[in-house]
C-alpha cells in the first residue's frame, strides 16, 4: 500500500473520464451460493471488465426464487455490460450507468411473472472507474464500500425499509439489525416498467491503493465493515474477494454471497489528499457520503420487496405511455437522504398559487378526512390487527372538498387512474408470505372539524 507519488494529474481538461489503462487497477470477484441447502441456486451475478468508459464492476442479487432470480440477475448484468460495450468514450458515464440500469430494469420486467404472486427481480450496484474518479449507481440493498488507507466507509445507502426507519430515527441501528423485516427493499429491478436509479452525483476521487468493494447482502449481512477492511488491506483483490466469501460462509452463509474487489493503483485526476496509512487506529465509518447507513442485518430471509400498495401512481418524470398502476410506483422508492430534522426541502412556489393552493388544499383534505373517517368506521369492525393509528388534527378549519386520502388497504384499486387488467394489482413482488396489505389501525380517529380562526 504505497503511495508512490509519481502519478501526475492528467493534463487533459476535465471532462468525461477517459478509460484507465488496464494496468491502473486490479480487480477480483467471487460468488458463491452460500450454505443454505435450500438456496443452492446462486441468484447473485457479478461482472467486471474494461469498457470504453472505464472499468465496470457490477453485482446483482436476484430474487423471485430459483431460476427466476438467477435469470433476473444474469440478465441485468448482461444488459448493463452490453450497454457499456456500445458506449463511446464521449458518452457521459453517469448517463450510461443510468440508461444501462434502466434497460436492465426493462429487460427483467419483461421476464414477467414467475408465479402469480412474484415477479423475478434483482438489485444492482455498479461502479465505473475512469480517470475522473469512480461513478456509482445502485438500486436495492447491494452495496459498495470504499477503503481508503485504514478507513472504510459505505458509498451507497440501501434502498430498504429499515434503512429509512433508521434515517428517520424510528429504529436504532441495533434494532434495525435484528428487525424481522430487515430484508424488505424498497426498490428493485424488474418490479415496474420504470425504476428510479440512484446515481451518485459526483465521481469519487481515488488515490493509489484505494479499494472499492461491491457486495450482495449475503456478504454484508454477515461480514461487518471492519472485517472487510481487515481482509481487503491484507491481500490482493482476487484473494480478498475469496476470503470475504469464505468468512460469510464461515458465519453461516445464509444467502448467496458475492464480492467484487477493485483496487486502484493510480490517482484519479482530482487527487485525494494523501493519508498516513501506517498509523492510528483503523476507522470504520458508518456514514455513507454524507448520509447515515446501517449495516444490513443478519437475517435468515431472502430479500423481498416492501409491500406495495396498489393505487394511483406517480410515474417517474421520464415515464412515457400508459402505465399500469402496478408498474409505475406501486413499488416505493426512497427519497434522497433526509433525516428527521430535515432541512430545506421546501417546495414553496410563488405567492398567489400558494394561496389558491391553500384554499384548495383545505377543501381537499377535509373531504379526504371525511372519506377516510367513513372508511375506517366501516372497516373498524373487520380489523383486528394491532397498532392503532390516530391522526389528530390540530385546531383548524376543515372545510369540505374533493380529495381523499386513500386508506392504505383499499386493496381493490378503487382509486382513479388507469385500471390494471384483472388480477395485476395483486401481483407484487414479495417472494415470501407477506401480511395481506398494510394494516392501518382498527380504529382511526378521524379529525374532527374544529371551529377556529382560520379563514
Amino acid at each position, binding site marked *: 500500500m504505497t503511495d508512490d507519488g509519481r502519478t501526475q494529474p492528467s493534463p487533459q481538461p476535465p471532462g468525461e473520464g477517459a478509460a484507465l489503462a488496464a494496468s491502473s487497477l486490479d480487480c477480483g470477484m467471487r460468488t458463491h451460493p452460500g450454505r443454505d441447502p435450500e438456496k443452492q441456486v446462486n441468484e447473485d451475478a457479478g461482472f467486471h471488465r474494461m469498457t470504453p468508459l472505464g472499468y465496470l464492476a457490477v453485482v446483482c442479487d436476484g430474487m423471485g426464487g430459483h431460476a427466476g432470480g438467477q435469470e433476473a440477475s444474469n440478465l441485468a448484468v448482461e444488459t448493463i455490460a452490453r450497454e457499456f460495450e456500445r458506449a463511446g468514450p464521449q458518452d457521459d458515464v453517469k448517463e450510461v450507468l443510468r440508461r444501462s440500469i434502466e434497460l436492465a430494469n426493462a429487460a427483467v420486467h419483461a421476464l414477467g411473472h414467475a408465479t402469480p404472486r412474484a415477479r423475478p427481480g434483482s438489485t444492482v450496484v455498479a461502479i465505473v472507474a475512469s480517470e475522473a474518479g469512480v461513478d456509482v449507481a445502485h438500486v436495492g440493498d447491494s452495496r459498495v464500500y470504499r477503503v481508503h488507507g485504514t478507513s472504510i466507509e459505505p458509498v451507497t445507502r440501501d434502498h430498504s425499509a429499515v434503512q429509512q426507519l433508521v434515517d428517520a430515527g424510528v429504529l436504532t441501528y441495533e434494532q434495525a439489525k435484528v428487525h424481522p423485516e430487515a430484508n424488505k427493499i424498497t426498490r428493485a429491478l424488474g418490479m415496474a416498467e420504470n425504476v428510479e436509479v440512484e446515481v451518485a452525483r459526483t465521481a469519487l476521487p481515488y488515490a493509489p491503493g484505494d479499494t472499492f468493494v461491491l457486495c450482495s447482502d449475503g456478504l454484508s449481512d454477515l461480514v461487518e465493515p471492519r472485517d472487510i477492511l481487515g481482509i481487503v488491506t491484507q491481500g490482493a483483490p482476487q484473494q480478498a474477494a475469496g476470503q470475504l466469501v469464505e468468512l460469510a460462509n464461515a458465519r453461516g452463509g445464509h444467502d448467496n454471497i458475492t464480492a467484487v474487489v477493485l483496487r486502484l493503483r493510480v490517482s484519479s485526476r482530482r487527487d485525494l489528499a494523501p493519508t498516513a496509512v501506517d498509523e492510528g487506529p483503523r476507522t470504520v465509518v458508518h456514514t455513507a457520503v454524507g448520509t447515515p447507513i446501517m449495516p444490513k442485518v443478519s437475517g435468515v430471509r431472502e430479500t423481498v420487496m416492501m409491500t406495495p400498495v396498489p393505487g394511483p401512481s406517480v410515474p417517474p418524470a421520464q415515464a412515457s405511455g400508459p402505465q399500469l398502476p402496478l408498474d409505475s410506483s406501486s413499488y416505493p422508492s426512497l427519497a434522497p437522504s433526509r433525516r428527521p430534522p430535515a432541512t430545506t426541502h421546501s417546495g414553496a412556489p410563488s405567492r398567489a398559487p400558494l394561496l389558491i393552493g391553500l384554499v384548495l388544499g383545505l377543501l381537499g383534505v377535509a373531504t379526504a378526512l371525511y372519506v377516510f373517517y367513513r372508511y375506517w368506521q366501516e372497516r373498524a369492525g373487520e380489523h383486528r390487527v394491532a397498532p392503532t393509528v390516530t391522526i389528530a388534527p390540530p385546531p383548524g378549519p376543515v372545510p369540505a372538498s374533493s380529495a381523499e386520502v386513500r386508506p392504505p388497504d383499499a386493496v381493490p384499486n378503487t382509486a382513479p387512474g388507469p385500471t390494471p387488467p384483472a388480477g395485476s394489482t395483486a401481483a407484487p413482488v414479495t417472494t415470501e408470505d407477506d401480511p395481506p396489505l398494510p394494516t392501518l*389501525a382498527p380504529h382511526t380517529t378521524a379529525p374532527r372539524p374544529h371551529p377556529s380562526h382560520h379563514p
Partner: protein
Amino acid sequence: MSGVHATLKMDVGSVWVRDESSNNGTWVQGARIAPGVWNVVPAGSSLRFGPVEFTVTVE
C-alpha cells in the same frame, strides 16, 4: 386539485405516507416530501397535507 392527495399505509411496523403528486404537498416533520415516494411517518411526528397538519400516534 388532485383526486387523491396522498396514500397512507402501515408496513414494517410504521406508518408510511406517499404524496400522490398533490398540488399542495405533503409534509412530514416539517419537510415536504417528494411525490411518489414512500416516507416513514414516525410515531408522534407531524403530518401535513397542504395546510392542514396532524399528529400521528401509533398505539
